[in-house]
Structure formats: structure tokens, C-alpha cells
């Protein structure tokens, strides 16, 4: 029943045997211990599990692990490191855009997907892009400011660092 797949996760190729009904989220969290992507609803309604699949934001709970075969996945763990944080990570800190932190990884990955596609979004475009990522703590204001600040830094810094 197990399906063999090869998937590049955060730059590293993983050869795995996954179950036919196993979600990408479950694969990342349970098999690879990449727990940055969170399970908030398991129904694609909250955005806490957003990762990039070939550079595009997806709800990892709605993608089958087997579908990732031959593709590239980037999770929050694949962004910056202390001392070399991604502009989005830096901006989320500088703008106090983090509270409980549960939505933060998904929020940052969605924002990254937006900025890769649209380096200079209007606030309305940022609002729309992250409207599928629920946050119950912050009221979103500081998140919106952080995304704009990161966009600016990414534009300034040679179109940003791509993961």
C-alpha cells in the first residue's frame, strides 16, 4: 500500500514511503519532524499549515504526500537561521507581528508566496493574500505592516533572497 516518493524538502531530497491517504502535512510533521507547519483545522480553513509547493502557497493538510512526489517543498524551517533571518522573519519580529506564534509559520509562508509573485503589493493585495490565514491574537495590523516592510527590504536587497 505504501507509495514510494522522492521529494525535495528545504533543499534536501527525501526518499519516503507514504500512505495513499497521508497528507503532506502529516508527512512533514510525523515523518520528518518538521513541526513548523501546524494543524489548526485539517480542513484547509485556517492556513496554519501553509508551506510552499514549487514556490506556491498550499494548505499542506489538503495536499496528499504522494502528490509531492518529484516536487519541491519549502517549510518555515527552510527559511532563515539566527543571524541570517529571511526579511519576512526579521520584519515579523521588528513589527511585533507575532503573538502566540501558532499562525506565524503559515502566515510567513503565505506572505513569501505573495512576495515571490508580487514584490510590491498594495495593502489590499496583502490583506487578500493572507485572508486565508487566520490569526486570533494580533488583529493583523502589525502583520500587514511587517509584510510591507519585508517587501521593501526584499526589493532593496537584489529582489530578495529566494529560498
Amino acid at each position, binding site marked *: 500500500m505504501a507509495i514510494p516518493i522522492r521529494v525535495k524538502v528545504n533543499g534536501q531530497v527525501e526518499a519516503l514511503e507514504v500512505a495513499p491517504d497521508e497528507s503532506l502535512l502529516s508527512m512533514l510533521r510525523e515523518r520528518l519532524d518538521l513541526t513548523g507547519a501546524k494543524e*489548526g483545522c485539517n480542513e484547509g480553513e485556517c492556513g*496554519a499549515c501553509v508551506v510552499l509547493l514549487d514556490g506556491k502557497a498550499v494548505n499542506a493538510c489538503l495536499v496528499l504526500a504522494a502528490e509531492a512526489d518529484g516536487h519541491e517543498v519549502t517549510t518555515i524551517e527552510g527559511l532563515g537561521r539566527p543571524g541570517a533571518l529571511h526579511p519576512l522573519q526579521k520584519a515579523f*519580529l521588528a513589527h*511585533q507581528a*507575532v503573538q502566540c*506564534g501558532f499562525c506565524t509559520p503559515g502566515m510567513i509562508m503565505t506572505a513569501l508566496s505573495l512576495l515571490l509573485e508580487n514584490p510590491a503589493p498594495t495593502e489590499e493585495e496583502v490583506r487578500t493574500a493572507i*485572508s486565508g490565514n487566520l490569526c*486570533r491574537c494580533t*488583529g493583523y495590523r502589525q502583520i500587514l505592516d511587517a509584510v510591507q516592510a519585508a517587501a521593501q527590504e526584499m526589493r532593496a536587497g537584489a529582489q530578495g533572497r529566494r529560498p
Partner: protein
Amino acid sequence: MSQGRWVGRDVLRVDGLEKVTGAARYLADVKLPRMLYAQVVRSPHPHARVREVDVSRALSVAGVRAVATGRDFPFHVGIYLKDQTVFATDRVRFVGDPVAAVAAESPEAAREAAALVRVEYEPLPALFDVRQGILPDAPLVHPDLGKYQVVPWITPQAGTNICNHLKVRKGDYHAALKTAAHVVENTFVVPQVQHVPMEVHGSAARMDLSGKLEVLTSAQSPFTVRHLLCACFGLSHGDVRVMVPQVGGGFGGKAGINLEPIVTALAMRVPGRWVRLVLTRAEEFYAAVVRQGLVATLTTGVDRSGKVVAQRMHYLWDCGAYGGYGVNVVRAAGYTCGGAYEFPNVWGDSIGVYTNRPVGSAYRGFGMQEIHWALEQQMDMVAHEIGEDPIAFRLKNCLGPGKRTVTGQLLDEHSGRVDQCIQRVAQAFSEPLATRPGRLRGRGLACAVKAPAMPNDAASSVLLKFCEDGVLEVLVSGIDYGQGLRTVAAQFAAEALNLPIEQVRVRNLPDTDLSPYDWQTVASRQTWATGNAILRAAEKCKAQLFETASQVLGAPVERLALRDGQVVDTGGAGRVPITRLVMGYQFPDGHVIGGPVAAAAHHVPEGLLFLDPQTSQSAKPVAKWTFGAQGVEISVDPDTGHIQVDRVVACYDVGQVVNQGLILGQTYGGVVQGLGTGLMEELKLDLLTGKAQNANLVDYKIPTALDVPAALEASFVETPQKDGPMGARGIGEHTMIPTPAALANALYAACGIRIQEMPLTAEKVRAALREKRAKG
């Protein structure tokens, strides 16, 4: 705004790095070796007798290791009123009431087995409305109400559905009402709503082979969980260890005790194995606790000068199936029943009523948003009735220094200034509101007040200790689930010891075996209580450092000061780095004085007095009050009824801003959460089946980034709190209290319709506009 080196500034979150890198581990991220998965068997009936529970088929499922039922664990649990059992014994009281639970090697096996637990029910008449619940012939949700254990200051009434009743009697209400020139009476309704933390409830437990219990749980209160688990299962505090990882939001829903007894019961059945229960999002909506509903009736008598002379408040709380925690919301709403106003003659009743709805509990604001929905609309309605400006009417009647609360407490110059908050908002609204084609626009204002609702002995304690390299470790056991306690704790410690903030590390994943005691993270009490404890502990550390340094430098202690990691003699005899002091000082000849520098300290509220049982009069029923006001500007679409919130202006008297960025986060977050309850949120039940109709994030909407007002403005008055750390008082909950009432008042200003039942959905607004047009 007064600023210290650290306190009062925009210090960045000390736990931010782990949260933006994905390093932060929440309950479901923690790998537990050979963990079993739990599944709860829940009642499909809102009210039924449990005739029989047959687990034989469930036990035969491959991979099932344990099944626990109410027959095995008929133990009572509850923080104030022990009215719940771990699993239902003879009766279920809401759809979702736990009847049994299964632990199995896989989630699939657990689900399969849970579905095979056969429960024979005998349905009973269900009660969904508090107004029916207080009638003499209402079905009784808790026929055994008189037999439950309860704290002395909660008053359940046996033979009724009333789980608590607080009476406030001040002055002579009835006589004063007769003198009133105008009398206005209105009823307001608040539905049950859900907290919707992004992280659902989860708990895990393991009983080791020696009988010691470990619990890992997403909770606001590790020590209270330990205490209540011990009471429930008859365990010693010495044998129970409760640990809390990162918590993904709580908002009151993770206060007290929740899933911990269920996983503990299962763990006792399978010694040596971890058992973990994580709710589904659907379960989170109806099986985790919710905010209580409210039916509030207010009567206001005003004299010719526009002063309120008599005020009656009748609050009927929908506590749902169990009132363990909710009874104290009822109490808090009682002793705060008049809100931000001075009413000389008061007749107040706050009554908690059981129904067969989901279980009510604490939710950010602890009853205050609900009563302010009523109070702050009523103030506007009275002002309109007597032809006075609502802001002037508020200023004429609001609390302040020299005024007395409904319990007779005299406020002084340290108590906070709601009048200044009102004026600040009014000032922001001094320009006329611009019109917008095709929209009806209006402004509304509402005030807020809240005190910490907690037992008089609610304590926080902390431990400060230095590492060999001079890093200061601060152990606090309040939960930082986003509000910023860790950062604030670092700020206070760094301020008091004049250290670079990078040299302070807050150790805060509380573990009851290792961490200092803290009652609960509720009541907006952590900055205040833990902050005070830190300042005291820092003074003790300073004394230890100075005692040693005094001998090293040959200078009297009074001449010493701490500067950037050094103890300096201000008289010029020299300086010594604290790295040479924190483990004791070694002289050149080898002898050592002093030793590892460390200190513990605590904070317990000072001088709190019980309420009079008949009248609730008390000179100091609570530790402090935080006042505030919010104004909103809205645009209403007259065709759809949709309310767009254009601007929110919030002002609170916080005593002292401790962290500029964090307090803005608390304000924006609370306001937007308030917009959610004000405009869109309601947990809807099917009144035939008792089942939740919108137990998912599509049908139960919470605000998204698209709902954030274009302008969100926050400002702060700083009237120092006498017993606050550097003058600070709590703010976390207050920011969502006035928002819905301000919206309702703005709606009236925009289009002359008054909606008294929360939330202000487009459907209700459209219907009210139609009705108004029909009346001409």
C-alpha cells in the same frame, strides 16, 4: 509616558525568534515515545439519562489499549463548583458531553473503537433558554446541585437551575426610582460564542510504573491543573507533574481544567504509556468550553439634571451544562454590574443558569464585554431619551477619584481615569464625519472597566538566579500564550538590576516540579502580579550582590550601584563585575565569600475583603480596575446591511505602558476580536437536536485580514497604579470589552436602528432598516 531604560520602550519579543523559525513546540509538536491516541465518546443528546455503557466491542478492536467510562471514574471536578465528572455517570447534559474515552495505538483504531462503544440513553427534555430555565417547572439540569462541593463565595441553589446568584444592593433603589424624571428599561442579548484559539485544546498524560503522573497540556494554569487533578483523582501533589509547552492562544478557554482529567483517567489504565488527546476543530467548537450567553435587563432612572439616580441590572447568564468556572464570571459581572459609572442606588442581580448548551467558561473580558453590550447601549439610549449628548451624559455619570462603585468601594487618585479616556476618544472625533455616497455613516462610543476576578489569595511567585557568566535567569510560571509575559518579565528584571536585556533569559515553559508557583494566567494579572514579584526578587538579588561587593570594595552598601553588569562604588573606591560575584567572590588568597546569587519572591493581592453576602458591599473587593473607552466609525450599506468598520480609536488608562509594541498588539488584537463578536460570531445550536450548526471555520466566521479597519488608533492614559509594578495595571482583556457596544451605538447614529441582540449581522441590519422604512 514615563520611560525607564527598558520599561516603557518597544522591546522586541524575547520569544520571537523561536516562533518565526518554526522552533517553538506546541503540544502536538512534542514527540512522546510510544504514545497512544485518545478519542472521546460524546453524547449525541443534549439531555438524557445514561442507562448503560457497553465497551466490550470497543475493547476487541485491534490496537485498543484502554477504555474508560464514568463507571470507572465517577470523580467530580471543577475549579469553583465541582459539578462535572470526568465522564458522564448517570446523565449527559449537552451534545458533546464525554461519556467514555478510548486509548489506542493509532488514531484510526481509537476512532473505530470509540464508534463501537454502545451507550443506551433515555432522552430527557432539554433546556436551551435561560428565561425558561428559571421558571419553577423547568427541567432540572443538575438535580444533585445541593450535593456538590463549592467554594464559600459561590451560591448554587438546590432544586433550581441556578448555579450562582450574586446580589448587589446599594442605597435605596426603589425609593430613588420613584424620584426619577425619566425611566428607561431595555433588554439585551448575547449569544454563546467560541474562543477559537488557533491551537485547539490538547493534553497528554503518562503514569509511570511507580505511580507518578506526568501531564503535558495546552493550558493557562499548570498549578491549578495539578491541584484540581489531585483533588479529582485523590493523588498527592508530590506525585503529579504538570508541564506546559508553547500555547497557541487560549483567551480564557484554556484556564482552569479541561481535557486533563480525561487523559489522566486513560493513563491510569495503561501505566508506562503516554496517552494524548487533541481535539478536532469541530470538537473545539462545541465540546471545549465556550463563552456564556447573557440576557440582560437594565432599568435606569435619571433626574432632571441628567444624573442617574437609580439603576437596576438583571443579568441572566447561560452557563451551559456545567458551571465549574462560569460561576465566577457570574460573580464578577455582579460586583462590576454598573460598569464604568457611579450609580448611587443600585439593585443588581447576576444569576447563573444551567442549560443543555455547551459549557460556559472564562473568555477574554470575563463577562465584561457581555454586560457592557447592555450597559453602554443603555447609556446612549438614556441620553437620547433625555436629549443629552451621549458623551456629556457619560462624563456626568462616570466613575473616578472620590466616586463609589456599586459595591461601595471608594476610588482614589490611583484608580484610573475613565473620563480622560472618554475625552481622548471624543477629541479624535472632533472633526465632522465625512459623508460617503451610498453609505450611511455613524460614530459610536463605549466605555469599559474590568477588575481581575480571582480568589483573594491568588499568588504569583518567581525565581531569579544567575548563571556563571552573569546571565540572569528569570523563572516565571505564568503562561505566555502570546500576550508577551516573557518579554515584560525580562524588561522588569533588566530594569531593576540595570542589566542589558540580552543578559536576561526568561525560563518559561512551566513545569510544576521545577517552576515557582503561579495560580493561573487569567484576569489580566500577569504583568501586574509577576511584575511585582520580579521587582521584589531583583531587590533581594541586588542585596546579595551588594553584600559581597561591599566587602570586596571596602565600601558601605549604601554607596553601591549596579551599572551594566558591574557593582560600582559611587564614592570612588572602585568597581567589580557581577561575573566575579554571582557565584561568590574569591579573593587572591583563595578564600571565598558569598555564593550563587538567587532569590525568590511572590505577589499576593493586598487587603482584599469579601463581599457582604446579602448586599455585596465591600470596601476592597478587587485589587484594581482598568478603565478605557473606544470609539468607532462605520459605514453601513443600506441595501445589504453590511457594516464596514472604518476606524477604531481606543484609549485605556494602563497606569504605565510597559512595552509599546506589545500593548499595541494587545489593543489591535482585542479590538479585532471584539469586532468578531460584535459583527459575526455566534455558536448556533439546532434547538431540536441541541447540535451545533456551525462547528467549523467556514460557517463560524472569525475576522480575517480583510476585516481590519483602515484606521486602528490606540493611546494610553498613565495614572500610576499604587500597587502596580512601576505603576502598571492589566490591559490584556480590556481591549475587546467595549467594541460591540460602540458598534451598536454607531449603527444607531448612522441609521437610527437599535439592535440589542449581538452580533450585528448584515441580515439583522437589513431587516431593521426595512422595518424602519416600512414604518416611514
